[in-house]
C-alpha cells in the first residue's frame, strides 16, 4: 500500500517545459475538454438545438416576407446564421474557463509542471471542434430546407478556416469575460447581451439597403459579422444575394473580418493576461 505513495519521481528535475512536451500537454487538455461531452451530451444538444431553432424560425417566418420564399432567403440566412452561431459558440470558451477557475481546477493545473499555455490552448482547440460541429449542424439543416452550395463543395474548407480564424480571435472577448465575472451563468448572459446586438446590426439576416437610417447603415456595413457573412456567401453562394448577376467578392470582406478579429484580440489578449495575473 505504501508503495503507491512513495515519494520517488522518475527522471530528473527539469528546468523548463520542452516544446514537444508542451504540445503533448496541450493535446491532453484538448482531450479533457472533449471527453466531457461524453458525460454531458446536453452540451452538444445545446450547441445544436439553438442553431436548428434559429434556422427554422428565420427561414419559415421571415423568409417569405424578406426574400419572397424560403429558398430565396437561404443564401442570405445560412451564411449569416453560421457567423452568429460561431459567435455564440465562442462563448463556451469563456464559460468553460470560468467554471475551471471557480471550481479550483485551474489552480490544480497551475500547480503542475506543465506549459502555462496548455490549459487555455487545450480549451481553445477543443472549442474549435465545437465550432466545427455547430457549423456542420447549420449547414445540414440549411441543405435540407433548400440552401445550395452554388460554387463547389471544396469551398467549405476555406469557409471553415476563415470562420475558425475569426472565432479564435473573437474568443478572446469570451476569455476576458470568463475571467472577469463570478459565475458561468453571467458569462452566458453577457454573451447574449453582446452577441445579439452585434449579429443583428449586420447583414446576417437581411441585406443592407437604403431604407435604413444612415448611422445604422454605417454600423451594419462596418460590422465584422457582415464582412464575415459576405465572405462566406462569396465562397459558398458565389454571387450577390440581392442581384444574382453580380459576383460576391471574398477576399476583401474576409480581410476586413480578420482585421476586426485582430483588433478584438489586440484589445482582449492583454486584458485577459492582466486578469490571469490578477488571479495570482
Amino acid at each position, binding site marked *: 500500500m*505504501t508503495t503507491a505513495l512513495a*515519494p520517488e519521481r522518475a527522471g530528473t*528535475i527539469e*528546468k523548463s517545459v520542452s516544446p514537444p512536451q508542451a504540445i503533448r500537454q496541450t493535446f491532453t487538455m484538448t482531450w*479533457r475538454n472533449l471527453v466531457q461531452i461524453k458525460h454531458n451530451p446536453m452540451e452538444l444538444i445545446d450547441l445544436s438545438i439553438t442553431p436548428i431553432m434559429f434556422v427554422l424560425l428565420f427561414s419559415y417566418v421571415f423568409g417569405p416576407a424578406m426574400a419572397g420564399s424560403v429558398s430565396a432567403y437561404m443564401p442570405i440566412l445560412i451564411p449569416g446564421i453560421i457567423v452568429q452561431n460561431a459567435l455564440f459558440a465562442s462563448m463556451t470558451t469563456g464559460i468553460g474557463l470560468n467554471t475551471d477557475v471557480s471550481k*479550483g481546477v485551474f489552480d490544480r*493545473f497551475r500547480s503542475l*509542471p506543465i506549459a502555462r499555455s496548455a490549459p487555455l490552448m487545450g480549451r481553445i482547440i477543443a472549442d474549435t471542434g465545437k465550432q466545427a460541429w455547430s457549423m456542420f449542424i447549420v449547414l445540414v439543416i440549411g441543405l435540407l430546407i433548400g440552401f445550395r452550395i452554388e460554387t463547389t463543395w471544396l469551398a467549405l474548407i476555406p469557409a471553415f478556416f476563415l470562420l475558425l480564424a475569426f472565432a479564435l480571435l473573437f474568443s478572446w472577448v469570451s476569455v476576458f469575460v470568463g475571467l472577469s465575472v463570478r459565475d458561468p451563468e453571467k458569462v452566458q448572459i453577457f454573451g447574449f447581451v453582446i452577441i445579439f446586438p452585434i449579429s443583428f446590426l449586420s447583414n446576417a439576416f437581411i441585406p443592407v439597403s437604403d431604407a435604413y437610417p444612415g448611422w445604422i447603415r454605417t454600423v451594419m456595413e462596418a460590422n465584422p459579422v457582415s464582412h464575415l457573412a459576405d465572405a462566406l456567401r462569396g465562397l459558398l453562394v458565389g454571387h450577390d444575394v440581392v442581384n444574382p448577376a453580380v459576383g460576391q467578392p471574398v477576399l476583401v470582406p474576409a480581410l476586413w473580418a480578420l482585421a476586426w478579429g485582430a483588433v478584438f484580440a489586440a484589445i482582449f489578449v492583454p486584458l485577459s493576461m492582466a486578469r490571469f495575473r490578477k488571479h*495570482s
Partner: protein
Amino acid sequence: MSHAIRAEGLEKRFGETHALRGVSLTADAGTVLGVLGPNGAGKTTMTRILATLSQATAGHAEVGGFDVRTEAHRVRQLIGLTGQYAGVDEMLTGTENLVLIARLLGLSRNESKARAAELLQRFALTDAAERAAKTYSGGMRRRLDLAASLVGRPQILFLDEPTTGLDPRSRGDLWEIVRGLTADGVTVLLTTQYLEEADQLADDIVVIDRGEIIAHGTSDMLKAQVGGQTLEVRPIQAGDGEAVAAIVGDLADAPPEVREGLVSVPIADPAMMPAVVRRLDDAGIAVGELALRKSSLDEVFFALTGHHSDDIDAEANELAAGATKETSA
C-alpha cells in the same frame, strides 16, 4: 538535513489589504508542519505562494531547495497541492481525472491508467471510478482531489484546509491518509482551522492570525508556552467546592474556577501538587478526582488570538455550508 520548505519574510498585498505581513517558517523533510489560524488569517495566500500559484509582494521562499519565484517549474515537479475547494473536474469520472493528471505529467496511456487505478483503490474510490465526479459526496471528492495531487508522487504536499466541511468520519479517514504519507517520507504543509487536527497530525505548528505568525513550536511547546498546566479537583461532596477552591486558590497564582462541582486552576509549578493533596487531607475533604493536565490547544489559541477556536469552527462550518468561494486570493 535541509529544509523542505523555507519561507522568509513573505508579504502579500491585494490592493489595500495586507494578507501576509512578513511570514517566516521552515519545515524539515518528512515532517508535518501545521499552519493553524482562523479564516482570513492568510493561510491560503501563503499556501498559494509556496505552491507557485501566486507571487509574494516581498520576501523569499524555497521549496525543495528551489526558489518558488525563479525556479517555479522545478518546484512544481516536487509538489502536490490539495486546495480548500476540491480541484477536480466534475464532468470527468474519477479515473479520467487521475489519468488526465498522469498524462500531463508525461506518463504513457497505460501507465496513467495503472496509476489511476492504484490511487483509486488506495482511496477507496474504485467502485466510483467510472462515475462523474459531480456525483461524488464531499468526502469522496476530497479524496479524489488528494489522489490527484499524489499522481506525480510529490515529495512535498500542500494541504490547504483538507478537512473543512467534512464529516468526522471522512476527517478521520483523511488523517489516516496523511499519516501514511508522512510514514513514506513526504513533507506535508497542512493548514487548518481545527486545533485537534493540528494536534493530531503536526510535528510542528505555527499559529497565524491576521497575516502574521504569532506562535511557533510543537503542540506541547505551545501548550507550555501559554497555558502551562491546569489542576483539576472534584470533591466527592459537591458542597465542599467552596472549601476546595479556597485551598487551591491559596496555593495557585490565579483564582480558581468552580463549574459543576469541578474546581480548576491554571498553575505554573507542578511541584505544588503534593501540597494541595496535604492541605485537602488536613481539611478532611474527600476527593473524587484530582488531575494535572496540559492546557488544550483551544486554551492556547484563546490566549494567543483573543478568540476561541469554537467561534472559528462555527464560522468555518457556516462557510462550508454556504460553500461560498473566494476566487480573489
